[in-house]
């Protein structure tokens, strides 16, 4: 049945390859850029949750 659908829909193999390619692109670019980024900025970003000072009575 699926063969029939594939034939009828034309060549759709490109979709899977396109999807994989796009993912590879997004993953690679985000990984490369994340690891190339400035340490000072990353440090600032990762400390953002710890900056504000709500009263902490508990433990």
């Amino acid at each position, binding site marked *: *049945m*699926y063969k*029939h*659908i*594939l034939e*009828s*829909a034309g060549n*759709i193999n490109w*979709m*899977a390859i*396109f*999807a994989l390619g*796009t*993912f590879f692109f*997004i*993953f690679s*670019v*985000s*990984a490369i*850029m*994340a*690891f*190339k*980024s*400035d340490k000072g*900025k*990353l*440090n*600032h*970003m*990762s*400390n*953002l*949750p*710890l*900056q*504000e000072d*709500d*009263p*902490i*009575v*508990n*433990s």
Partner: protein
Amino acid sequence: MSKIETFSYDNKIVRNFGVATAIWGLVGMLVGLIAALQLIWPEMNFTTQYITFGRLRPLHTNAAIFAFVGNGIFTGVYYSLQRLLKTRMFSDLLSKVHFWGWQLIIVAAAITLPLGITSSHEYAELEWPIDIAIALVWVVFGINMFGTILKRRENHLYVAIWFYIATWVTVTVLHIGNNLEIPVHMWKSIPVFAGVQDALVQWWYGHNAVAFFLTTPYLGLMYYFLPKAANRPVYSYKLSIVHFWALIFIYIWAGPHHLLYTSLPDWAQSLGSVFSLMLIAPSWGGMLNGLLTLRGAWDRVRRDPILKFMVVAVTAYGMSTLEGPLLSIKSINAISHFTDWTVGHVHIGTLGWNGMLTFGVLYWLWPRLYNTKLHSVSLANTHFWLGTLGVMFYAIPLYWAGWTQSMMWKKFTPDGFLAFGNFLETVTQIIPMYMIRALGGTIYLLGAIIMVYNLWKTAKAGTLVENVEASAPARETYKSHTGDHWHRWIERRPVQMLIFSTIAILIGGMVEVFPMLLIDENVPKIASVQPYTPLEIEGRDIYIREGCISCHSQMVRPFRSETERYGEYSKSGEFIYDRPFLWGSKRTGPDLHRVGEKYPHSWHYNHMYDPESMSPGSIMPAYPWLINQEINTAYTPAKVNVLKMLNTPYDDGYAERAVADLEAQAKTIADELRDQGIEQENLEQKEIVALIAYLQRLGTDIKPDPVTENR
């Protein structure tokens, strides 16, 4: 240096959402527990039609997902967003509209679902007026969130906020996509898509409800509250960047793993499987990032119940995101699908990941909101152990039950017959596991009750700090520097973040869903498959109203163990008039796709009146009201008209004759019932007749003609 500005954080809205989280959490868990007990003692609906398992199950799932976890999301988002951006929420009025609007939607769900008003799309059961209300409230939330982001004093958007943005945009797309429906009247609509297309769109939605409602916003909460509780920054901010982009891009593709071995085209199934397996990488990246945040603080985990809750939550996240991809492998799915294994899996996620993280966040927040100490750390520790044991006592028996039942379904005798030909044998075998599961649910609920008491006492001991004074430098206009890289650029630009996130999640949706919709004409048509008659339409709507889909599938998979038990495997061309599709996702009872003409009408009549009279030991509840209630034909012509508008090939003007046709068919069935010994006044007007008409039609369009077969 910019001048320092003073402002205040709105804590009252955080408290309100927190209270709603706790209350709806108890309600959702209690409904789940009642539903679990009904699977042991079906009479626990007390012959009331409004609380049968079929109607309670969607109430439970909606309460757990949208009421408990939904309010949990908003609690965490409203607290963290203000502080991460160093500004008050954009509008207090919008915050209030959001809060009360969301609670009203929950109340509307709690009223309509027991009344049987349901679209039958899992986790999207609410009917169209409530769908519109959800969309409006969601937009209010979006305006409030983006307004806050735009008036921020902190240039950079912390990773938690990216997860919030991705959540908002994806839930918007999913909610619209899966609720494209045409109203028949105030409380009934018919979906635009049918059969295979409806199934694909539904599970594209269904899985991403898990992904973008139960996961991404909670990852945002993890990235904020875990560092807060541990008092140290996230282990690797770089990893969080990769985690975010990889996760939101891949997650959107995974939906078709809910439809393996069904009539969905194989290429879509394969895409779903492959992307599900790929999900292990970003999911475990996130889990490890969470756990490693506790490096050097593990000694505190021994003492601090908040960290204990968070560690178990993140571990449960890791376990369920390993298990999910494994269940997406076709050979494993062949065993797990339609069994309690799936139910166990999702509860590791909801009870373990969402529940435990919510508890940790509430315990962390409450003393701060009320400027006091937590009433009792030892009660929180007790809750932690009850919660952890509750999850284990819940999930382990269901893994056992799922595996046991699946093996029994598939077992053949040496002579080639099904070893357990009577489906009921495979149900009664796992009742003890259902009992232990209910015990696990009770333990978990008990822990949550202790938490509510503890939080209530904490609140009583302190005073709510409605507004927290704060100060921060005004936001500087950022000047770009040579060597700036793209991610720092995007971190400062929420609108671009929104656009990129949207593109990332749309790629998967478009590649998977669009071909299925565009090649609509190429779903193999089967000449003998005809539209439902008006009586069958009404019977089908009764089937939907009663939530039969909660326990019965309509999808015979192409396995010998299934074709032997049920008959010919299901073909996609058989569902082209099914709006909505009713394939189901769980077999507490047998598949019904080939039940048509299998039993006489009287069998169905007696079975619905008292299931045990036909199947001793059955855990199906009785449906005596179907015998007494009359078929509502007021909207039958409108239903026919909407179906015709959606290309169901009824003749022009057929709607005007629909009720007459319905009455004629009902009379025929009623006469046959009388011939089979059923005596009842005005039988032809009763709902049971419509339901019998529908059940007897199921799967019969392609049954081989016995005359031809014998020739």
